[in-house]
Each structure stands twice: as C-alpha cells, then as structure tokens.
C-alpha cells in the first residue's frame, strides 16, 4: 500500500498522496512535541498507526451505529468508540485549545482520479430505465457490436453468365495446353514451335477400338467382383509385340491392344527415360482375368 513507486494508476497516486499528507501531519506533531528530527522508521511507524487509528475509529463507530439499527453515525457513536479504544475523551477539549497555536499545515491534495475521455469512440448506449443513474456507463459500442465485412454475392444474371463462360474458357485452355505439353504436338508454323502447339492427331490403327473396349472403370468393377484368377494375366503383358487385327474374341482383342498401348508407351518412354515426370510414366492398366 505504501512505499513502492512504480508508475501507479490514478487510484494508487490518490492513496499515496493521502499517505504522504499523513506523514507530514505526523512530522508536524512531532515538531510540536519538541523533536528536532526523527528516524525514518519511527515516522513510518507513527504514520501507519495514525492511519490504522482513523480507520479503526471509522469502522467501530459504524458498527456501533448499525448495532442500534441506524445508518448515520452520530456523536454518541464516536464517543463510545473512543472510550472503547481507551481514549480519554474528557481531555480532548483541553488538547484542542492547547494546540490552537500550532501551525496548520498539510493542504489537502487536489488530484482526483479522472478517466481519460480521449479514447472513447462513438456514442455509449444510455441507461435503460431500470438501471440507476450512479452505475457506470455502458462501454463503447464497438466492443460489443460487430458488423460483418463481406459484400453480398453478385446475383446478376448477366454477370454470372459471363463468369461461367470465362471460367469454362480458362479451363478448356488450361487443359489443352496441358495435353500439348505432355503429349505429342504438331505446329502450324514452320519455325515457331512453341507458340501455338496443337495436340497431335495420331490416328489409331484400329479406329473403332475405343468403342469396343470397356472403360477402365468397368474393368475395375469386373475385377473386384471376381478377383480369383489374376496370376494368369501377368504373362500377357510380357508377350512380344505383334499387331493382330483379327477380332477373334474380346479377350484376345484386349490382350493385343493392351500390348500395343504398353508398347507405344514404352517407345515414348524410351525417348524420355531421363525425365521422371509422373505424367509421362507408362500407364498402368489393371490386370484382366481371363474368363473361363
């Protein structure tokens, strides 16, 4: 409560100022008693005592007053308090008259703790009728009101159509460029290869093959339903290349086309075996079982 000196709040300064006043008072009393100087510890002791004394008188007087079902302390309460604390009240007038000649020092301190108004922002909400006026005010409205900062989405038909169209165009362009970069390209201009790459149009040897072949998804499903005879199909991928155009049976057709695709991929891979691009690796087709 006393002694330490960090940069205190206004309330702390308030307390310290009053304590210093008490110290001044104690010093003047000591001077009047006849002392020229005093030890710091002694002055501190007396200051603490006078502060406790005043506080105790206040507390005890309040207790006596409330003991008789009153709220306002009167002179009698104080007299009783002083008597109870061992104070001789009869000598008090004599003391007061004696010390008329004493110097009246210690002007009261005038710094009141003030809440700074510089940081308020906006109008505080006024008190509703059920809150008494001496209660503190509501805080600044920005502490509890939040306004969302997103804009409402655009729902204009024309803007949306434009957006959809531009997105589609971008996707198409990106996809074709990707295919051009990873596949074979033909170029329209003789000297400029990279500006307008066209995806190379390589005709299939058997054009109607893609219509006959089941898609990969169907093949996976077929594989999952009966997955017992997978081992026999490992040999089909290692057979030497032979171009057979007879459509003997669907399984044989599958096997030959499988080898064709894998061989094409293999040749392509042979050119660029230094680049380990995951998109350029040979396609791994799922194994086919031979239906018996």
């Amino acid at each position: 409560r006393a002694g330490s000196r960090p940069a205190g709040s206004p309330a702390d300064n308030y307390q310290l100022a009053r304590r210093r006043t008490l110290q001044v008072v104690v010093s003047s009393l000591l001077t009047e008693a006849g002392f020229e100087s005093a030890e710091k510890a002694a002055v501190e002791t007396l200051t603490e005592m006078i502060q406790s004394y005043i506080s105790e008188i206040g507390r005890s007087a309040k207790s006596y007053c409330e003991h008789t079902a009153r709220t306002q302390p009167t002179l009698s309460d104080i007299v009783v308090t002083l008597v109870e604390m061992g104070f001789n009240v009869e000598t008090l007038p004599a003391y007061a008259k004696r010390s008329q000649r004493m110097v009246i020092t210690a002007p009261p301190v005038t710094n009141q703790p003030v809440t700074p108004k510089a940081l308020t922002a906006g109008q505080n909400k006024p008190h509703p009728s059920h809150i008494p006026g001496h209660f503190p005010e509501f805080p600044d409205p920005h502490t509890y009101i939040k306004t969302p900062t997103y804009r409402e989405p655009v729902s204009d038909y024309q803007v949306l159509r434009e957006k959809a169209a531009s997105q589609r165009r971008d996707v198409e362009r990106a996809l074709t460029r990707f295919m051009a970069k990873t596949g074979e390209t033909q170029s329209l201009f003789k000297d400029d290869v990279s500006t307008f790459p066209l995806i190379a149009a390589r005709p299939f040897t058997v054009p109607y093959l893609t219509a006959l072949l089941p898609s990969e998804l169907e093949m996976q499903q077929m594989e999952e339903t009966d997955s017992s005879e997978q081992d026999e199909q490992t040999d089909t991928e290692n057979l030497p290349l032979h171009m057979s155009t007879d459509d003997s049976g669907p399984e044989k057709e599958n096997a030959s086309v499988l080898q064709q695709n894998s061989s094409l991929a293999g040749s392509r891979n042979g050119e660029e075996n230094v680049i380990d691009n995951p998109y350029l690796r040979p396609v791994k087709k799922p194994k086919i079982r031979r239906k018996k």
Partner: protein
Amino acid sequence: RRPAVPVSAAVAAAPDGAMSNGVYVPPAANGDVKPVVSSTPLVDFLMQLEDYTPTIPDAVTGYYLNRAGFEASDPRIIRLISLAAQKFISDIANDALQHCKMKGTASGSSRSKSKDKKYTLTMEDLTPALAEYGINVKKPHYFT
C-alpha cells in the same frame, strides 16, 4: 495505562436513579467509578469546533473514514475524529520525548544546557513509549 473513563452513552430507558437528561447513574457509587452526570461530553465542544481546523485536512480523514465504511453526515464529526487521532499521536510523542530526556539526563551530563536542544525521535525511544499503550513493535535494524 488505560484511563478508567466512565461511559456516558445516551441510554433510552430511564429506570430509577436516572438523571433528568436520561442518563442512567447507578446509585451505589464506589471509589473508582465516577458517575458523569453531563450529557454527551463533547456536544458543546463540537459547536466550538466549527471554526477550528485540525492539522489533518478534512479530505484526508474523510478518505480514510470512507474506506472503513463511515459515511460522515456532519463535517464537525470528521474534525473531531482527526483531533482524536492527533491527540493519540501527540501523547505517544510526548511519552517518547520523556524517555529521550530521561536517557539524556539520567547519566548526569552537564546541567549548563539541560541536554542539547536537539531531540531526535528514535525507535529506541518509541518502542517503550508504545509498549505502555500495549503496542509492541519490532523493527529490524537493517535489511539484508
């Protein structure tokens, strides 16, 4: 050293033996108890207190009283309390001065000037003065 002060509280009931102003005085008076027949002793003193300002400012005393829960209706009450506190400290200071003088002249120093005029309040003088009031202080000489 507690003085035997008679309590003269204004009691509402008035059994026999009561004086005219309602204070109850026990009829059998032994030597110690001195019945006080006056009313609350400081009432008229309080009237004189209006123009007298004690050393402790009203604001400071009022601040400490408010912290204890005491809401003062009359500013003279505050002055009374500050006077009482002043007297309390003055009494202790006078006792300490007595101790200081006793220590000085007890050893029979030169009487030309009855001890040097400079009295310094030290803890060695204050401690026995407070002990008479029942307050025991023990301050360390140094802090480590």
